[in-house]
Every structure is written in structure tokens, then in C-alpha cells.
């Protein structure tokens, strides 16, 4: 959903304000998706390639996270942990030493 601006001089309606409220405090049934690239130098097999993926929403906690459109290069499968109101942790284990071990995925936070 894209946001819109209020025309200068126009009346500000409740729906205008709710754009921000619903972005910062995602209601139940909504989702927030982020496509991320995580890249790291892996010094040995099983070295962790991971990062914290933050959400725009900061008040409600997602009940689940879905990963889709995933591409893995030099790493095994991705795991998700520490799902919280500010995001989740995504990790993958390197399959061998690599200067460019990485993964690309779309993380969808389901509220």
C-alpha cells in the first residue's frame, strides 16, 4: 500500500492520520515485507552469515515471519530467530570459506 500526501489547504481526515498509525503500529492481519541482502566474509565452514532485520513497525510483534524468493550463495538454509516488536534475526551457516558468502530473501512479518 502506498501512502499519499494531504493537499495544502485541504482538510486532514482521520484516514490521513491512520496512514501513519497503521505504518508504525501494524494492525492484526497486516504484513510488512522487506527484501534484504546479507553478505559476509566466511572464514570457515559453518561460520555465521547473518544480520538483524528491523521493521518499520515498532509497537506490535509479528506472530510469524515468512521467507520467500530466497537465493543462497555459499551458505546453507536460513534460520529465523528472536522475532520481536522491532524485527527478527536472520542467520545462515557458510558452506565453506568465502569472501562473499551471502543470501537474498524477502522477509514478510505477519501481524
Amino acid at each position, binding site marked *: 500500500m502506498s501512502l499519499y500526501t494531504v493537499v495544502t489547504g485541504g482538510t486532514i481526515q482521520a484516514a490521513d492520520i491512520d496512514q501513519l*498509525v497503521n505504518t508504525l*503500529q501494524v*494492525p*492484526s492481519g497486516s*504484513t510488512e*515485507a522487506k*527484501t534484504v541482502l546479507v553478505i559476509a566474509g566466511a572464514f570457515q565452514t559453518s561460520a555465521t552469515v547473518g544480520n538483524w532485520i528491523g521493521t518499520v513497525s515498532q*509497537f*506490535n*510483534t*509479528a*506472530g*510469524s*515471519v*515468512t*521467507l*520467500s*524468493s*530466497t537465493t543462497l550463495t555459499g551458505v546453507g538454509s536460513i*534460520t*529465523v*530467530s*528472536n*522475532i520481536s*516488536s522491532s524485527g*527478527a*534475526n536472520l542467520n545462515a551457516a557458510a558452506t565453506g570459506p568465502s569472501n562473499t558468502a551471502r543470501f537474498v530473501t*524477502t522477509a*514478510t512479518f*505477519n*501481524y
Partner: protein
Amino acid sequence: MLQTIDEHAVTWHCLGDEETPCNATCIASLEEVEYQADYTLTLLDAETGQAIQARPDGAVMVLPACACGARMWLKADYTMAYFRRRSSFIEFGDGQGIVQLRTLKPGHARNLVLHQLLYERGKAPIPPILPALPAEEWEHPIMELGLTASLWFTFHLLTQSTDSTLFEQYFVEAVHANKKIARVNQLQLQGNHGNTTTRFSNH
């Protein structure tokens, strides 16, 4: 989010993403669901220094991948601090700012129920932080399991009780309050006030 749970299987709706929309309804047996925790936090008693509770930190439950390749992880590391935040609940008000009914969000309630089922099967090392939904409440004639579980966990948080009889009383009152709220909503819509009384807490 999970859609349904029973003692043998779970179902969920896979949305995929913007590039590869999916919309499949997926089903998996409980044997296919995995519990994962990277490390365990041990909580110590402040006075004696003795370990009082071990809690896997950041734990999740992993569902099998959908045919489209998407995979879902469910939150399984709930804490009492989490439940003390009002943002964990859906609140139903009377339109005048008075909360008439508060229930734990059904998605989180279903996660707790699934966690309990995995624990009972030896697939999770510790039980969820709130007590299990009593067996007799699993097939309630009025409510879907997620909503029944929401009311059960909220009832326990409010009363610290696991008494099924008291819960039934609470359940009836909650359903009554819900009907009343629905009626207020209807009247408001008929009156074209433009407001609904359902809101999501931001506290």
C-alpha cells in the same frame, strides 16, 4: 499466521511475496513442525543465585516449506514481560474510550497452543509460558480454537487461575460483551457516525 490447529495437523495460508504471490493453503502434520532455539538463558534467583528457570531465547517453530518455496517461522519465546504490554491484545471498546473486552491476539494464542502440542510430543524442551488450554475447551461449540485460546490465556493473565468452571463463566461474559459490542457497532453504523468501536491498542 496459522489458521487452524488440531491434535494432528496445522494449516496456514501462504501469501508468497510481491514477486511470487502464492495464496496456497498449506497443511502439515505436527511431526513436520520443528522447534528451534539457538541458546538457552538461565534465570537466577536474585537472593540465592540458584537457577530458577531455563528459557530458550529467541525460540521459533518452523513449518515445512510451501510448494512456492516460502517457509514460515512462528514466534515461540513469549515472556511475561511481553504479555504485560497492552499491544499484545486486541481491545474492544464501547466507543466512549471504555474497554469492554480484551483478548490476546489470536495469532499469538495459536502459537502458544502449537508450542504446547510440540512440548507434549517431546519436540520442545520446555512448555509455553502460559498454561495449556484445557482439553474440554478444544472443540467449543461457539468459538474457533484461536479465539477460545485467546480468551483462555487472557483469563489466566487476569486471574492467575486455571479453573475450567471459572473460565466458562468468563467465556460466557466475554461472548455476551462481544455481542453487545457488535450491537453498538451496528447502531453506530446505522447512525452514520463513521466510527467503529474496535481499535488496536497503542500502549
